[in-house]
């Protein structure tokens, strides 16, 4: 199979992730979409790795998974903290950085 298919699939998944991050207000969904974007990147890395016959891309994919796990831990931690403080679970409500 050609690598192009994998890359197209990866681009689709990445676009789904981006549109989710930009359009959704529930932080849980935003986190899920971030995961989608990361895994789309993973898919592209693995596809290129297979095309070139090297292992570097696969190692990168493993590292990205670890990073993604860490990021989810922090993200869920923030969401739990918001819940504990009885803040609305809505990222548009957290707009204190407005200039």
């Amino acid at each position: 199979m050609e690598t192009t298919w994998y890359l197209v699939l990866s681009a689709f998944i990445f676009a789904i992730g981006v549109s989710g991050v930009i359009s959704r207000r529930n932080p849980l969904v935003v986190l899920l979409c971030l995961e989608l974007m990361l895994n789309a990147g993973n898919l592209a890395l693995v596809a290129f790795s297979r095309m070139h016959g090297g292992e570097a891309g696969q190692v990168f994919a493993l590292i990205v998974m670890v990073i993604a796990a860490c990021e989810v831990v922090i993200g869920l931690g923030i969401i739990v903290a918001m819940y504990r403080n009885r803040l609305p679970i809505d990222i548009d409500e957290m707009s204190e950085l407005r200039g």
Partner: protein
Amino acid sequence: MSATSYGWLVLAFPLAGTLIIAFGWRVLPGRVPGWIATSAIFLAFLSSIGALLDLLDRSEEERQLVDTAWTYASTGNFKVGLEILVDPLSVFMCLVVSGVSFLIHLYSVAYMGGDRGYARYFAYLNFFVFSMLLLVLAGNFVILIIGWAFVGAASYLLISFWYRRQTAVAAGIKAFVINVIGDVGLVIAAFLILDNVGSLDFLPVFQTAHDHFATNDSTIVWACLMLLVGAFAKSAQLPLHTWLPDAMEGPTPVSALIHAATMVTAGVYLIARMHPLFELAPTAADIGAILGCATLLFAGTVALVVTDLKRVIAYSTISQIGYMVMGVSMAAYSAGLFHLMTHAFFKALLFMGAGSVIGAMAGIQDMDRMGGFRRAMPFTFVTFAIGALARAGFPGTSGWFSKDEILAFAFNRGGWYAVLGVLGYVGAFLTAFYSFRMVFRVFYGNAVPEAVELESGHVAHGEPMNPMTGEPEDTDVGFPGPEHHVAERAWPMKAAMGPLALLAIVGGYVAIPGVDNVIANFLEPVFADSPLAQDEPSTGAEWLGLVIGGAISIVGIGLAWTIYLRRPGTTARLVERYPWAHRFLEHKWYFDEAYGALFVRPFATFGSFGRRVIETDFVQGTIVGGATGVVRVSTSFARAIQTGYLRAYALLLLVGVAGLTLYFLINSS
């Protein structure tokens, strides 16, 4: 141990007392802070005696010792260090200051017993004494100025001690501001001397001053006038005297400390210490003598009509300091310092007696309300009368010897100095009169209810109120407690007043003309270089002066007796007949009003103008408002991007990355 080691100890004990009480007040129970403070000053007094004994062991030429703990700054030939000068003059001052302060501390232990700020009071009191000792032991102008400023700060803290009392806070500020005027004078004088002589250490300056200045050179005259500004502000001489009567807002022992041992004597000490400079600037010294003489007359006349017991004593202090300033400005150094010592004894005693009477009156200070305390308070009466006799210069008391020695010097100088001497005798007459006006009005006459109550064995109690305004006071914070103390019932007060009463009588016997002259002989090495000081009046002239002074004193006391006891009501007739004179004196020659119109009100107007126009409109409105406006307008675009929405940032990031990627892709093809 050498004299300088004792000198450091003199400074160390009160400082240690201050620090222990200031940091340990939480854990020190009851009257312990008072006893710590008292023993600290007592140890300082013992150290002063140690320094005295060490000096006496040395030959007269070797009695000026300088010791430097460390050097602050050293450039070229110029250096400034933490330096003390131990010589007969500073040891004499240390003895007077620490000795009288010790007794005042002892008195305070009982007198301040019920006060909420007991520990705070003693921490301040020890700091006050430390500052004064630093001032008199200073070996150069820098340390002198430090001690000088410390004394001003400590007086501010103690005058405003009852800080919930509006009048006390105002009085503290007034004292501080006028003292700072004096500090500025002293700093300018030190600068003029440094500029011309190139040194700030006392001994080199005094030894080389005549190489740098011709007699009555305008620079040295200005330097000495600036020194006089400093001295007059601290010593409450005309025209910088207005703070001292107001300083009566502090607790009574504080008044005793300010008036007897510390603070007001600093100006006299300064002039005596700087005598080599003043002798190079006779013009400045003459101005000092004239102003001292004017002050003693002014304060004497005001003391005739003031009805506040403590303020009468305050004006008498101004008047007595006038004698000292006149004396030391006329080169009667040892006579002026002798009067400083005897005055310290009887003035501390008078204030302690007044404190006891005020305690019996439950805080009331108005003499119009007092009377007939003689039987109720025998101890206070006797000691107070002794103090008044000594102040009046009654024959045989200490004030008789010391005051007339100054006047004898004035007549000996001759010329117009003799006029000052005659005016001094006029002042002595006033002193005798108002001293016994006080005694007769407080202790004689019909017994007031408070006195009757005390006779039946119970100290009167009144609602706490401000003695000046009569307003009721908040006793929760920073105010005298509900207790009042009289000397008859508190042994520390008795123990403090007894020795002072004794000293007020016998203190003068150290310098009986023709018999002995302990003070002058001891101070001789300090003033040995002064030709004017060697020209002493003959024994016969001094005795003649003593006889005249004694006669004047007896006449003054007799007049007071006639007016207040034999024919009561005379004063009311006098007031009716000369209302303008009474009003003039009652308003203290309108000094406060004049200063209010000349300085205070214009500055207050300017200040409110500045706040209203300069601060609000110009600074806040134009400068600050303009600057923020410019920034706000110029950043409006950047601020608009910062929406605070997470997805907006994500979108911007995406657009940016996509844009950059496209740019590089297009460029690379």
